[in-house]
Every structure is written in structure tokens, then in C-alpha cells.
């Protein structure tokens, strides 16, 4: 017997975990939860491994029918979720009973919600991960890269959990206008002086042409002395600038190598926050060096140690 059935899925809901590693040299992308911070908290509330499989729900449009009693946890965006008719706030665990309907409508704050289940949702691991990558036909419920579809059956393995309460001060403020940290990369010196000023002193708008491969930012036109480079490995969060001068932040489902010059790469924390920005949001970029970013990330990870 399954634990839940997908009553409908009209937007994009998919199984994600920490991603696929050790296979980048084969051209296989990383995948994994875009806002990994919210995934960590959702799993933490149930005492799961922090990267246990969760459902990443983008923008809403999902209804799940519960077929078994259990305890779930929700983190990330407020997608106006309801359990039957009762509103559900994110950043909490909650009990479901057989016969109840769990619905995600549309964004009120943020873009992606993460639903965790005891022990993690079950999927078919491919190359060490259940992360759904549609473009590569890898991962997900059946291992074929498909997002959740109406009629899909979901399951989890864990038994009784003692849910943990998330401390109020840990709840991220998706509405805050904190800049996104960018670790400056080797090619930054190839950009024109004015462009370097513009990168870090302008508002950038999250474009509608954005997905799990990359988010386009629009703003002042950036100029680089290099039209292109010999293709090389692309890290998570790389900020590349194609000849149109408008940067693209490369994300979990990016191509593994590419040939546009780069400013550097967003920190993992900045990538997670970008994952909660709806098209039209404004963001700012702040330059940091690798060492200080590393120290900040270590401090951040202390939250779960």
C-alpha cells in the first residue's frame, strides 16, 4: 500500500536529494534540491539524514491524497498549503491522516517548498541518487527522470518519528534584501572596469527564462574582453556572461562543461536563496574571496552539527 497518491500535479513537483556525485566526468549533471537549506531543515525536523529524498514543489499546483497516517515536515516557500481546509505554515512538522488532502496552491512568499517524510521518500536511485533530472532522463520515482504525475504513488520507509521544532530564529526571511555572495573567479579580470562596477552596484532582475539549469539575470550590459573560452568544467553557482552581456547563474541541472567567460560562482548559501526568488525579483551581488566564503559556509553548517 502506498502512503500517498498524487491527486494532480499541474506545475513542477519532483523527487530531489543532495544530488549525484562522482559522475561529472561522464557528462552527468549534479541535480539535487535547488534550495538545499530548506531541504536540510525539512529533513532535520523529522530526524532524517539531511539529504534524504524530499519533494521539491515549484510554485504550487500539487495535491496529494494521504493513504496512511504519518508525520511530515514542510520547509521553504509559503505556497499557501492546506491540509483539507486548514492552512499549513511552512517550517513545521504536521500529522496527516488517511483520507486527508494536502494541497499546494500558489506562492505567497518564495518559490520552492520542500516536503519531507519519515526516512525520506522512496525512489529508484540512479548513479547513487534519486535526484530527478528531466533533461537527462535520470532519477525520480521510477529512475526515468520524470517529475511527479497524476496517479503516482509515493511511499516512505521510516517509522514513528519524534518531530523536532525549528527554532524561530532559524527561519530564513525570503523577503530580506541581503546580497548574494559571489566567489570571484579567475576570469574576473577580463571584464571591463565599468562592468565590474556595475556587477556589484546594480539591481539585477530574475528573468522569466529561468529553470533548474540556470537563472538569467537582466540589468546593465556587461562587457568582457573574451568572447568565449575553451570549454571547461562548470561548478554549481557559476555566473557566466554570454556575448549579450546578461549573466546566467548555472545551477543544479547545468551542463558539466561550457565556454562562456565567468565572473565567479555564487556560494551554496546564495544559490539556495536564489532558488526562492520568483521571476521579477531583484537581487544584488557581493564579491567575496574563496577563503572568507569557506569560513562563512563552515559557520552555516554548524546549524546541524
Amino acid at each position, binding site marked *: 500500500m502506498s502512503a500517498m497518491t498524487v491527486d494532480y500535479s499541474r506545475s513542477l513537483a519532483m523527487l530531489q536529494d543532495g544530488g549525484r556525485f562522482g559522475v561529472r566526468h561522464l*557528462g552527468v549533471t549534479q541535480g539535487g534540491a535547488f534550495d538545499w537549506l530548506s531541504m536540510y531543515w525539512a529533513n532535520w525536523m523529522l530526524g532524517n539524514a539531511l539529504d534524504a529524498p524530499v519533494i521539491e514543489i515549484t510554485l504550487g499546483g500539487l495535491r496529494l491524497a494521504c493513504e496512511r497516517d504519518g508525520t511530515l515536515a514542510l520547509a521553504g516557500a509559503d505556497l499557501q498549503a492546506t491540509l483539507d481546509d486548514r492552512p499549513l505554515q511552512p517550517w513545521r512538522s504536521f500529522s496527516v491522516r488517511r483520507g486527508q488532502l494536502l494541497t499546494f496552491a500558489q506562492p505567497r512568499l518564495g518559490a520552492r517548498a520542500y516536503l519531507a517524510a519519515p526516512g525520506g521518500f522512496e525512489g529508484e536511485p540512479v548513479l547513487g541518487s534519486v535526484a530527478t533530472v528531466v533533461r537527462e532522463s535520470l532519477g525520480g520515482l521510477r529512475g526515468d527522470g520524470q517529475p511527479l504525475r497524476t496517479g503516482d504513488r509515493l511511499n516512505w520507509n521510516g517509522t514513528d518519528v519524534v518531530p523536532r521544532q525549528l527554532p524561530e530564529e532559524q527561519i530564513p526571511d525570503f523577503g530580506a534584501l541581503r546580497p548574494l555572495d559571489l566567489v570571484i573567479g579567475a576570469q574576473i579580470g577580463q571584464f571591463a572596469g565599468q562592468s565590474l562596477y556595475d556587477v556589484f552596484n546594480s539591481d539585477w532582475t530574475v528573468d522569466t527564462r529561468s529553470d533548474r539549469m540556470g537563472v538569467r539575470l537582466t540589468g546593465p550590459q556587461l562587457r568582457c574582453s573574451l568572447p568565449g573560452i575553451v570549454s571547461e568544467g562548470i561548478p554549481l553557482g557559476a555566473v557566466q556572461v554570454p556575448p549579450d552581456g546578461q549573466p546566467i547563474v548555472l545551477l543544479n541541472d547545468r551542463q558539466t562543461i561550457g565556454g562562456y567567460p565567468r565572473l565567479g560562482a555564487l556560494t551554496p548559501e546564495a544559490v539556495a536563496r536564489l532558488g526562492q526568488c520568483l521571476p521579477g525579483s531583484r537581487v544584488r551581488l557581493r564579491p567575496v574571496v574563496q577563503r572568507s566564503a569557506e569560513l562563512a559556509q563552515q559557520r552555516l553548517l554548524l546549524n546541524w552539527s
Partner: protein
Amino acid sequence: MKPSIEVSAIDCLTLRLFDVIDERNMPWLRAAGEKVAAVFGPALIDLVPSYTTLMVHYDMSVMTSTQARTCLARAFESLEAAEDASGTLHRIPVWYDPSVGPELELIAERAGLTAQQVIESHCARDYQVFALGFAPGFAFMGLVEERLATPRLKTPRKRVAAGSVGIADRQTAAYPLQSPGGWNLIGRTPVQLFDYQRDGYSLLRPGDRVRFEPIDRAGFRRLGGDDTAQAAIEGTAA
């Protein structure tokens, strides 16, 4: 060769060995990859080789960026080109035909050759696998004869059939899975290039060599190829 180490991300460094694409880079890149893997050990998360560089993604929970730089510097201290310079040679059968290779005639026309001469040229040399990327198991190979060099389609196709063999500038490749694509298609191989149930997953690895061998439609079908040609090719060249 003037190796340098560059910052790529919070937990990624890039070892740059060369400035330009050259078949002679490959033995050095392979040797460097092996040394990096040995020096980093379990701290290595991913290693992404490309034409002139190696990107090293290390585990920042066990290693600082300073330690990673030291390791990387050690990896090329006494670097020598891989002795087995040639890598594995793969013979890949290809059914060259306009029905599965809609740009075969176009390439012939541009080069002032017949389609048959294009096929002979494409099969005449061993190609080096420079890098894998774009999609799982997609191997960038080269270099094709100068006359066959053809720029990518202005408008990429929305769907290219799995096994399609194409040319872009002086590189050649075969699409392991159905995907969008902008390369000039000249034929199709029945060989499965990426299979996550196979040991090693990808048939081709950076540093390997590939020789294409022409087969006919009957041979293509015999080897398990899907010749329902146009079905999976959509959106023609602009």
C-alpha cells in the same frame, strides 16, 4: 606548458595546463587526472576534465582551500605524459545516409565533395575524445579534416535521435540520448553510448580514440539500430 591553479568556486579549483585545443594535450590531461585522484583520495568529489583544464571539486568538510591548492600543486610537480598515450580504441559503426543524416549533402556541397567522399573522410582518421559534456556520455571528438568543418546550425533542433552522428566546426560527436542539438547530422550509430546499468556507464572516456566504420541500413538494423528515421528528428535547420 605553464600550469596554473585558478579559483572556480567555493570548493572547486581548476588546473589549467594548456591554452589551446590540441590532440597532444590528452596524454598530459589523463596523467594529471590520475595524479589528482591519487593525491586527493577520498576528499575528491568530482574531477571534470576538458580540452585544456581539469576542474577539481573537493570535499570542503575535510579540506581547506589552502590544503586543496597544496595538493593540486603536488599533483603536477613531477607530471609526465601518460605512457599509454593513446587510450582505448573504439570502432563505432555508422549508417551514413541522408534519411538519418540530413546535413550529409550540405557538408559535401560546402566541401566540394560527394557524399561518399565525406563518409570516407570521416572514417579515415582516428579521433581523440577531448571531453565529455553537454549530456551524459556525449563525447567531443576531433579533429575532422578541415574541409568537413561546418558551423553549428543557426537554430538547434528541438530533438535529435539517439545515436545521431554529427559535425560542428572541426569536432565530431554522437548523441547518446535523444536531446536537443545543433550539430550537422551525417548518420546514426546503433551503438549504445551511455547506459547506467553498464559498468563505467559511458562507452567513451576522455583520452580514448574512436574510428568510425560505415555500415548499411541492413547492418544498422542487425546491430539493433532504430531506423524509423524522421520520427525523432524535429525542427529542421533554419
